[in-house]
């Protein structure tokens, strides 16, 4: 199973997609607990003297069953992805490229004049992109 979520700067969900959908509640919980790790990493970034603003946060924390990856935009929108621990085939750069795709699609959503920042995301194009991405992570 795999899950993908977008969180607003105020940490409420803008978009959640779970495959299979039964795990959605658990995913909400996972995302919630990972927010602490995300905030920790963001503040660590601020203190370190990094020239390059690294958006990819990497593996947030592994558990027995799954691995959680994070990514934060400059506007403090957070992307979180959860994949099965059993999925060892997934490499770091593949995760990075998935986050980049998410980020690009998110940018397109932002450019829609009828989308108000902070609204939940209802977009067929976005759904299609997430679906095809999740299918790849099999």
């Amino acid at each position, binding site marked *: 199973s795999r899950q993908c979520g977008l969180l607003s700067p105020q940490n409420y969900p803008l978009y959640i997609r779970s495959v299979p959908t039964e795990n959605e509640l658990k995913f909400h919980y996972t995302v919630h607990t990972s927010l602490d790790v995300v905030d920790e990493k963001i503040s660590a970034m601020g203190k370190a003297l990094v020239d390059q603003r690294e958006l990819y946060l990497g593996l947030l924390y592994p558990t027995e069953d799954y691995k959680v990856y994070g990514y934060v935009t400059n506007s403090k929108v957070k992307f979180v992805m959860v994949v099965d621990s059993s999925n060892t085939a997934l490499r770091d750069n593949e995760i990075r490229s998935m986050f980049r795709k998410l980020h690009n699609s998110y940018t*397109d959503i932002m*450019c*829609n*004049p*009828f989308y108000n920042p902070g609204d939940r995301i209802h*977009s*067929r*194009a976005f759904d299609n992109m997430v679906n095809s991405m999740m299918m790849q992570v099999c």
Partner: protein
Amino acid sequence: MSHSPGRKQENHKISRELFVLTYGALVAQLCKDYEKDEDVNTCLDRMGYSIGIRLIDDFLAHSAVKKCRSYSETADMIAQIAFKMYLGVTPSVSCRSAAGNEFSLILDKNPLVEFVEELPAERASLCYCNLLCGVIRGALEMVHLAAEVTFLQDRLKGDAVTEIGITFLRKPEDRKHKRN
């Protein structure tokens, strides 16, 4: 002998995204200001008209085209030169009536709607690009061609293509003296 060089074509390009986003913001704001779709459409058409009556001189100055002698030539001019110059796309033109005064411009790509996936549910009759109709109408009026310009089909509304219909309303005056 003229010492001053001819007017240089200064090509200061602005970002396309900025233009598309500005247009989107305009439409979104009109949607906030007016409850009815028809009012927004009318407003867009009026704004377009105001642009068109001014844009025509810019167009004629930069394109150096010859006078059109038929409605068909005019429609071709709009599609192949004006649209190309200002929006970077070339709609295809077809004649819709036997009388030769109704034309369709079919837009394959429309840069204005690049980020709009579909119209919001409460705005089903919104003609998002109605500004373009006003522009064409205004520009034609300044060269003494009265026309009705509307969107006949719109991809944003679920139609297969985006189609602008131009209906010329009066015969052009017969020109006895051709300009060089």
